[in-house]
C-alpha cells in the first residue's frame, strides 16, 4: 500500500491520533439525565432478565468502539489517498490516438460518422481504465498536443475538442514510457501503425464515390499549356456521377459518367481555355457517404513568360541560352548599371553579388556571398534528383576547376563534393546558388545545363497559390488496413475511482448505520 497525499509516517501519525481521539472521546464520562420513576421494581426485573440472557449487552461497548474506530480510520486513510496495487492494478500510462484524417467523416450505416464511433470507443477505453491510470489524448493531424492527465473527465473534454481535419495524418511521436497505446482509426488514410500499438477499428464499408487524384500539369509540347488529371473511385454500387471542372468566371467543363461498383473513372481535361488561378474538381452522386472527397482543388499557373534580368559582366553562352528560351523574356545589364526594377520575375547574377539582397528570386552563378577559401578540382559526389531544380539533370560528367568553400547554414544542399556544397537552394528568400564560376567548369557545355537553367528559372518563378487545395489527400474510404473487427478489451478495472472515494463512501454508510443503531440504542 502506498499513500499519494501523505508520507507513510504522516499517515501513521494521523491514524494513531485518530484512534487516540476516538478512544478518549468514547471513555469520557457522559453525564446521564436523571429521570424519576414511580418505582424501579419493574425496571430492575427487565434489566436483570436482559443482562442475564444477552451476550450482546456485554459486547456492545466493544462493538461500538470498533465501529467508531473503523469510521474514523476510513476517513483518516482516505485523506492520505491510499493505493493498493493488487486491488486497483498497477497505474498505467495510456495513450489514445484518434485518427483525425478526413476519411473519419465517412457516414456509417446508422447515420453517424466513423469519427463519432471513434469518440465513443475512446470514451469507452477511458471508462475501462483504472483509477490511478493516466491518459494522454493524441491525434494524427499534429495540430493539438495534450499532456498526460489522471482525470478521465479532463480526457473526455480533450476528446471533445478534436475533429477530423484535412491535413495529411501522421502518427504522433510518443516518448516510449506508455503502458498502452490505442489507435482508434478506420485504417484508411493512415495505414501504418507502430508496433506495440493496439488498433481499435471503427471501419465500416460505405457506399462512396470520391476523387482519388486531381492534378494540373503542363503539356510536354507546350510549357505554357496545362491539362488536369482527375481520378474518381466508386466503392459503392454503380451510379451516375456528375463531374465538374471549374475555374474562374466562365471556365467550366462538365461530364456525367456511369461508374461501376469498385471501378475507377480517369480522365484528363484540357485547360488551355482556362485562365490561371485555382481550378476546382467536383463530383456529385446519390447516397454518398463522404462529402469531403467530392471536391479537389489544384492551381493553374498563369500563362506568361518569365521576366528575367541577367546581370553579368559578359557571358555569351548564358545570354544566348536565355535569349532563345521561349519561356523567358530576357533583359541584360552589367553589374555596374544594376539596380532593382519592379517588372522582373527572376534575377540571374553571373559572377556578381549585389550589395543588397534583391526582393525577387535570384539565381547566383559563382562569387558566393561568403567564402572560406577555394577548393581545387572538387569531385561531385552527390546531388539530389528529387529537387525540382535538379530534375533530369546529371552531374556525373561535370568537372570543376575551382570552387569557393561555403558554410551552407540554412540552405538546402542539392549538389555537393566531399568537402563543400556546389549547388544550394533556399525557399525563403527563394534562391539557387552555384558556388563555382561557370567559366571554371564544363557544366555550361553539358547537356544538362539548359535543363538546369530551365528548371531553376521555373522553380524560382513558380507561382505559389495563397490557398491550399481543399483535399490534398486522396483515399478510398473502403480500403482499410484494419477491417471492422473491434478490440475486445480485457483489462477493465473493477474500480473506477481512487480508493479514498470508496473508503469515504464506506465511512458515510457506516456513519449512517451507526447513527441509526445509536438512536435505537443498539450501539452506544
Amino acid at each position, binding site marked *: 500500500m502506498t499513500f499519494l497525499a501523505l508520507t507513510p509516517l504522516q499517515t501513521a501519525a494521523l491514524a494513531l491520533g485518530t484512534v487516540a481521539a476516538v478512544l478518549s472521546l468514547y471513555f469520557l464520562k*457522559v453525564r*446521564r*439525565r*436523571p*429521570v*424519576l*420513576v*414511580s*418505582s*424501579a*421494581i*419493574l*425496571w*430492575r*426485573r*427487565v*434489566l436483570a*432478565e*436482559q443482562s442475564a440472557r444477552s451476550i450482546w449487552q456485554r459486547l456492545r461497548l466493544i462493538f461500538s468502539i470498533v465501529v467508531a474506530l473503523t469510521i474514523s480510520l476510513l476517513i483518516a486513510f482516505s485523506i492520505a489517498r491510499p493505493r493498493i496495487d493488487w486491488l486497483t492494478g498497477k497505474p498505467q500510462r495510456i495513450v489514445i490516438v484518434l485518427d483525425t484524417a478526413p476519411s473519419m467523416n465517412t457516414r456509417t450505416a446508422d447515420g453517424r460518422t466513423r469519427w463519432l464511433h471513434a469518440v465513443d470507443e475512446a470514451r469507452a477505453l477511458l471508462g475501462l481504465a483504472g483509477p490511478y491510470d493516466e491518459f494522454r489524448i493524441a491525434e494524427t493531424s499534429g495540430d493539438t498536443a495534450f499532456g498526460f492527465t489522471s482525470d478521465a473527465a479532463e480526457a473526455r473534454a480533450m476528446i471533445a475538442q478534436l475533429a477530423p481535419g484535412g491535413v495529411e495524418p501522421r502518427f504522433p511521436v510518443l516518448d516510449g514510457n506508455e503502458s498502452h497505446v490505442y489507435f482508434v482509426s478506420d485504417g484508411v488514410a493512415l495505414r501504418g501503425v507502430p508496433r506495440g500499438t493496439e488498433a481499435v477499428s471503427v471501419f465500416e464499408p460505405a457506399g462512396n464515390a470520391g476523387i482519388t487524384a486531381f492534378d494540373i500539369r503542363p503539356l510536354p509540347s507546350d510549357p505554357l499549356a496545362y491539362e488536369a488529371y482527375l481520378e474518381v473511385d466508386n466503392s459503392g454500387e454503380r451510379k451516375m456521377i456528375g463531374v465538374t471542372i471549374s475555374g474562374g468566371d466562365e471556365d467550366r467543363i462538365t461530364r456525367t459518367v456511369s461508374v461501376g461498383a469498385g471501378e475507377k473513372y480517369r480522365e484528363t481535361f484540357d485547360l488551355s481555355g482556362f485562365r490561371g488561378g485555382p481550378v476546382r474538381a467536383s463530383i456529385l452522386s446519390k447516397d454518398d457517404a463522404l462529402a469531403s472527397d467530392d471536391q479537389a482543388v489544384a492551381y493553374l499557373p498563369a500563362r506568361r513568360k518569365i521576366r528575367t534580368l541577367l546581370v553579368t559582366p559578359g557571358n555569351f553562352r548564358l545570354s544566348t541560352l536565355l535569349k532563345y528560351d521561349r519561356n523567358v523574356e530576357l533583359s541584360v545589364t552589367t553589374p555596374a548599371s544594376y539596380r532593382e526594377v519592379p517588372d522582373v520575375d527572376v534575377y540571374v547574377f553571373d559572377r556578381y553579388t549585389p550589395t543588397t539582397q534583391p526582393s525577387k528570386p535570384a539565381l547566383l552563378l559563382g562569387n558566393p556571398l561568403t567564402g572560406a577559401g577555394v577548393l581545387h578540382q572538387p569531385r561531385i559526389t552527390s546531388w539530389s534528383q528529387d529537387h525540382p531544380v535538379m530534375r533530369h539533370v546529371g552531374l556525373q560528367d561535370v568537372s570543376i576547376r575551382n570552387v569557393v568553400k561555403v558554410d551552407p547554414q540554412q540552405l538546402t544542399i542539392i549538389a555537393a563534393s566531399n568537402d563543400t556544397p556546389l549547388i544550394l537552394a533556399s525557399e525563403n528568400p527563394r534562391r539557387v546558388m552555384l558556388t563555382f564560376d561557370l567559366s571554371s567548369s564544363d557544366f555550361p557545355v553539358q547537356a544538362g545545363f539548359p535543363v538546369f537553367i530551365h528548371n531553376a528559372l521555373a522553380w524560382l518563378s513558380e507561382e505559389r497559390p495563397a490557398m491550399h487545395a481543399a483535399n490534398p489527400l486522396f483515399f478510398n474510404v473502403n480500403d482499410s488496413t484494419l477491417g471492422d473487427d473491434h478490440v475486445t478489451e480485457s483489462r477493465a478495472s473493477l474500480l473506477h475511482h481512487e480508493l479514498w472515494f470508496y473508503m469515504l463512501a464506506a465511512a458515510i454508510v457506516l456513519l449512517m448505520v451507526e447513527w441509526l443503531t445509536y438512536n*435505537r*440504542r*443498539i450501539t*452506544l
Partner: protein
Amino acid sequence: MSTNATCGLFDDRFLNKLEHLSFISKRLLAGELMAERKSRKRGSGLEFADYRSYVAGDDFRHLDWKAYLRLNRLILRLFEEEQDVSIYIFVDSSQSMDFGTPSKLDYARRVAAALCYVGLTNLDRVHVISFAGNIASELSSQRGKQQIFNVFRFLTDIRPAGATNAKGAFLTWCSESKRRGLAVVISDFFDVNGFEGGLDVLRHFRHDIFAIHIASPDEAEPQLKGDLMLVDAEDRMRRDITVTPSLLTAYRAEFERHCKAVENYCGRYELGYVRTMTDFPFEDLVLRIFRQGRFLK
C-alpha cells in the same frame, strides 16, 4: 355542597349522582347499629324472615298467635335485622403514588372520597386508612352523611411519603381492629415485598376485599430514550440504563405482567378488581365501571 366544601375533589352534581349508589358486599357482614343493609342477624327489622319454636326468654311480641291457635304450639316469627357495615378504605400514600399528571394519589383521593360518600349516604361505618411502610394515618369510624367533610379533610391532608409495605401495614391494622368489613384497597401495588402479602393479610382476616389498581399512562408507556439515570421515587435508588426499543418493549411486557398478576390474584380469591389509568375520566370510573364490576349498585 360546593366544590370548595369538597376540597376540590368533585362537584355537587357528581355527589347527587353518588347518593343513589351503595356498596355490594359479597358477604353479609354483621354490623352494630341499625342501618339500611341486610344482615344475617334476625332481629327487629320489618321484613319477615322465618319461623322457629319459642324458647324461654324470647320476646313475646314476636309470637305468632294465629299459628298458636291453629297448631297449639308457640311459634316465634323472625325478622331480618338491617344493620350497618364497616367499610375500610385503604389509600396507598407511598411515594410511588405521587407520580403522573394528575398524580395517582390525587386520583386515589377522589376515588376514596366518592366511595366514602356512597358509604356514608347508606349509613355504613366508613374508615379511611392511609398506608405506606406502615399505617400512616387513620380516620376512624365515620357514620352519617354529615361526616363526609371529615373524610375530605383527611384525604386532603394525606401526604405521599415512604416506600410501600402493605403486608406490615395491614398486619398492624388488622391486629388492632377485629371487626370484619368491606376492605377497599386503592394502590398501584408496587411493593418491593410483593403485593400479595398485604392482600393475604386482609383475606386471612376475612374481609370482603375490593382492589382498585391505579396506574399512570407514563408507567404503562414510558416516553424514555437514550442514556438515563433512573431514580426510584420510593427508595431513591439510582440506576444507569440505556433505553432501547427492545428494552422499552420488555418493560411494557413486564408492566402488563404486573397488572395481570394483580388481576389474576384477585380472580383466584374472588376479590373485586378494577384497574384504571389516571387519564381515565373519574366519573366514568365511579358511575359506570364500578357498577359494571358489581362493586356498587
